[in-house]
């Protein structure tokens, strides 16, 4: 089994690259969790509270990384900041054709966009939760949707999937 995989990889350089990049995601992801990211979690907590204040939802800050809303206590963990997925995606977005400086510029913009989307998701999630929507619907399912869209975008960015409209002949209806 392993030999057949090796043989297939040696014949197919594209598959080799995909496999290498995907295999690097997990170590990068877990490496991110080796650090506490206190400052980023503090900022994220701050922005969630301020964003909800704009929507007139009152979140009570309990510590630099925790707050309460509607009698429930929430802790902003490393995963809430999306930094783990962001660093995990490093191997997928890395482009060998670009210089390191250009790639760094791209990654900076990419990180900011991801962070903004993630914050909007969190702010709206807590807004919905405070207005009676269950935690699963307000946060968990949108979070899954966010990860899905992000992953599909990464596949599209790498050119591993395309969204071109099918131009071939349509199958006759029976």
């Amino acid at each position: 089994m392993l030999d057949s995989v090796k043989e297939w990889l040696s014949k197919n350089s594209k598959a080799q690259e995909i496999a290498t990049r995907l295999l690097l995601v997990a170590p990068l992801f877990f490496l991110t969790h080796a650090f506490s990211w206190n400052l980023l979690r503090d900022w994220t907590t701050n922005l969630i509270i301020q964003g909800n204040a704009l929507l007139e939802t009152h979140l009570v800050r309990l510590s630099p990384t925790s707050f309460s809303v509607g009698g429930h206590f929430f802790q902003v963990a490393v995963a809430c900041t999306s930094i783990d997925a962001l660093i995990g995606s490093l191997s997928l977005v890395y482009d060998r054709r670009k210089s390191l400086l250009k790639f760094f510029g791209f990654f900076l913009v990419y990180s900011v966009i991801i962070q903004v989307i993630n914050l909007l998701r969190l702010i709206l999630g807590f807004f919905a939760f405070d207005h009676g929507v269950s935690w699963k619907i307000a946060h968990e399912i949108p979070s899954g949707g966010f990860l899905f869209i992000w992953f599909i975008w990464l596949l599209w960015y790498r050119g591993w999937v395309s969204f071109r409209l099918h131009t071939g002949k349509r199958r006759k209806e029976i």
Partner: protein
Amino acid sequence: MRRLMVSLFVITVLAGNIPLAIAIEDEPVVATSAEIQTLKTCTSLDSKKIRILREGSKCHLYTESLAIWRNGPTSEDLTSKFPVTTLQTCTGKSPSIRSYILIRDNCQKFQEATSWHRWLKSPSTPEFESVEALNETTGLITLKPMTENPDAPITFLTVTSHPDEVVTRGLPTEITKYYVTGLSQKKTYTFTVSATNADGESPLSLESKALTTPAIPEVIPAGPGLLSFITAFVLLFLFFAYRRFNSALD
């Protein structure tokens, strides 16, 4: 004549500020005169050995306790109320050298001996004012003001929590407030307290009123949970299944 005598007595008392009552045993008079020389020492609570405290330094909590000695006449007024102990020191005769040395025998020729006195009295029995749970793991004990020996301030309180029988020691944050940490959530506790100074430990207090700690609130991590990953995988599956289905149709 009797009225005149009474009036004269009242005037004399008010004008002359004659004390009508002497200090009771638990309320010692604090020596306030600046002229009375004091010597601060640290008494080892284990061995009762004494060492002179250097200017600005502190005794080590739990093992040593501050004791203040006076060589003024004020302490003599209280000899009848408290047991008094004395300490002999030697110091250089030159006024510029004021480093004291505790002596065991006699001072040297070039030194002069000084006798210091202090009252001996352990702290009185602590009494509870209130106990309250501040959070799931911390309780606040408020004690009634304790009468202290001015020559031996309280070094620490020993608080025992029941039924765990966990003993904690520490100085109260304010003179009467003591925070007990390390309690368990949703549990009822009572406490007993004793106070310790250089002269010894007070009798154990009566058991406090019961305190019940609240439950620790459940903290929800705001990151993506299992359902988020299941959602993402289901969406991915649907996405690729749809694409495969579409390509099969082509």
